[in-house]
């Protein structure tokens, strides 16, 4: 129904530039997740879409119409705030009905809409309560209900689950996923810190960093084909290992000699003779690493071993104190690896190569 189009959108507070060159096409019915480190401008971007924050550059279109100067209420959006932002002096019913009353809908219409939303969110028994008499999860549902009743074209969520405890977060995450499924033509934009939320909910993820968009793609695209070191390390846990090294053999496949005598690693990246001798970073996810039979690959001594049952995490002795250790995640139980020197390798398809922070494999 309603797509969004951001063209060169920028935000600055006075001289301080917070976001710039944001170009993004969102199709109707998508669930877009904004992720990124704290302070990268996720909330700011969301609030600009909502109309709560002035857009200082570029153009925002909702449903093909430029809405830069359209007040929030007329943009066809609804927003769930991090702290719920329920009106404390109104009952659950009035909280949900407030926007409809302002829109001068008839009593009957309002009642129908509120009761329907309450039914979907299992809030019917609480309609006469004040927000302070609700649990965190119920408050969150009221906040969502306040959006649903207005039947907006675009839903905006700013870290809606961050105030809930872990168990409730999982349950509410599922509810949001179901909600989205029941409204396939509604667009949702969702801000989160939580990778799992991003990976499970998103139809596409937008990674924000350094005042701009680092990469846009489906969750698996970001996982399998990160375009740069930042996305590579941001998606996935534990984060992808990065080894500095130098290209020593080119051709159909590329061999990279890791710095500090850590051995050689082969990547499926096809290189030319011109690439010879270039310094690059090799990226391998912990879960892609396995012990090599022939003694090739990364060579390191196991510093710490964590046995989690289903997987075993190996932390290798870092090259210098304070440096991030190389981590390997081996399936199953392995006993007594601590202190051993191992050779770890990965299948060439899983070996990423970055130059100047950018992936050579997926540009």
């Amino acid at each position, binding site marked *: 129904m309603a797509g969004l189009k951001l063209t060169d959108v920028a935000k600055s507070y006075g001289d301080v530039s917070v976001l710039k060159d944001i170009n993004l096409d969102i199709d109707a019915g998508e669930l877009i997740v904004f992720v990124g480190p704290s302070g990268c401008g996720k909330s700011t971007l969301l609030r600009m879409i909502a109309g*709560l924050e002035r857009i200082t550059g570029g153009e925002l279109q909702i449903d093909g119409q430029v809405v830069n100067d359209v007040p929030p209420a007329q943009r066809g959006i609804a927003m769930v*705030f991090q702290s719920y932002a329920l009106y404390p002096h109104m009952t659950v019913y009035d909280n949900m009905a*407030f926007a409809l009353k*302002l829109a001068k809908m008839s009593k009957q219409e309002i009642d129908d809409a509120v009761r329907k939303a309450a039914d979907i969110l299992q809030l019917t028994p609480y309609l006469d309560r004040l927000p302070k008499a609700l649990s965190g999860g119920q408050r969150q549902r009221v906040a969502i209900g306040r959006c649903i009743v207005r039947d907006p074209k675009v839903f905006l969520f700013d870290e809606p689950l961050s105030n809930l405890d872990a168990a409730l977060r999982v349950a509410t995450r599922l509810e949001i996923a179901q909600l989205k499924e029941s409204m396939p033509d509604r667009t949702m934009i969702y801000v989160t810190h939580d990778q799992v939320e991003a990976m499970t909910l998103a139809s596409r993820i937008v990674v924000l960093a350094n005042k701009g968009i680092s990469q846009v793609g489906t969750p698996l695209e970001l996982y399998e084909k990160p375009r740069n070191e930042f996305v590579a390390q941001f998606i996935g846990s534990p984060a992808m290992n990065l080894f500095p090294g130098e290209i020593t053999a080119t051709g159909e496949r590329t061999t990279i000699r890791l710095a500090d005598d850590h051995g050689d690693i082969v990547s499926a990246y096809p290189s030319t003779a011109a690439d010879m001798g270039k310094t690059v970073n090799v990226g391998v996810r912990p879960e892609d690493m396995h012990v090599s039979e022939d003694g090739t690959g990364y060579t390191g001594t196991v510093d710490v071993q964590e046995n989690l049952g289903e997987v075993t995490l190996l932390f290798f002795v870092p090259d210098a104190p304070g440096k991030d250790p190389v981590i390997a995640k081996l399936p199953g139980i392995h006993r007594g690896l601590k202190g051993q020197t191992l050779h770890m390798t990965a299948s060439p398809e899983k070996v990423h190569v970055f130059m100047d922070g950018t992936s050579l494999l997926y540009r």
Partner: protein
Amino acid sequence: MHPALQGLVTIIIGVGGCVGYFVLSNYLLDRFLLPARAFSAEQTAARRKLGTIFLFAIPSVLIAIGFLMTDALFSVQGFLWLVLAGALILGLWRLNDFVFGSGATTAGRNISRANMIRPWLFLLPAMVALGLYLTYPVFETFRLSFTQRIPGGYEFVGVDNYTQMMSEPKFWEAMRNNMLWLFVVPAMSTAMGLIVAQLTDRISWGNIAKMLIFMPMAISFVGASVIWKLMYDARPAEQDQIGVLNAIWVSFGGEPQQWLTLPIWNSFFLMVVLIWIQTGFAMVILSAALRGIPEETVEAAIVDGAGPFTIFFKIKVPQIMPTIVVVWTTITLTVLKVFDIVFAMTNGQWGTQVLANYMYDKLFRANDWGVGSAAAMVIMLLVTPILVMNVRNARREMK
């Protein structure tokens, strides 16, 4: 001694006395009465005995002193009775412990007991002072309102003072004016305070505006009355007007008016003074309350399509309603007691009498202590419900 030096000495004695009292009483409590250590069963029994004897000795001594001082001031006697009652209660508590208590005591029990007593140590001076200067006068005034002064003493006259007061038109004028003040001043002060708080919140010179509006709070009522008397001042028509109101009035072609003698209007001119003072108070409290409203609820309302007026009246005001009620009632209390302004500006003439000034008239001008006390009782009767409401509200706020 030089008066300034005298004042200084008084302060030193007062503050030193307070500090001394708190340090010494806590020291006694922690060192001797309930030290933070364990005692064996025998030690405990001995301590119980000693404590009980000691605490019964205090009332006996006090009773003895009381007998010796029958001629002394009533207030000192009242004070003695108060201490006596307290000591007896404490003594009975000890007696109970003495009879039924047995076995050793632990350090933990002593500490928790000491901590039960400690708040009372801190409260005691305030309670005694309040009892002496507030509770006692209330009862004494109540008694006086049923008496009449006769040469050499008092006689009981029943409700005569009240019936006499009720039959005086001046009393009903004061009642009517008080009610008028009651409706106008708190409403206007709170409303203007709220508007100013909201309007000055976002503008760059808002803090300066706030400071200017708050300043009258620092002026005494009498000082403010003098200032406003000048504002309402009238000069003969041929002279220049020094009163602002008349200057404006004359410049529009009116005759100079004696504003404070115009019936009905003059009451409102007096009210303006109090509104001028109290708006600052309302503004400061309400401005803090407005700042406490979560910004996100306002943003949610914006997204919901609310305009500035809807946001103010439907989102902001309801959220600070408890504070508004407290401000309103606090100003109401001030209004019920209003005295200085009327006293200094019209002294209740030209139909501006209020209850407090009426009481003062009776008590100190006519020397009719009976009717004066009766008027005081009426004021108290009016103030009490509002006071109770205010305290309740404040308590609910704190939860």
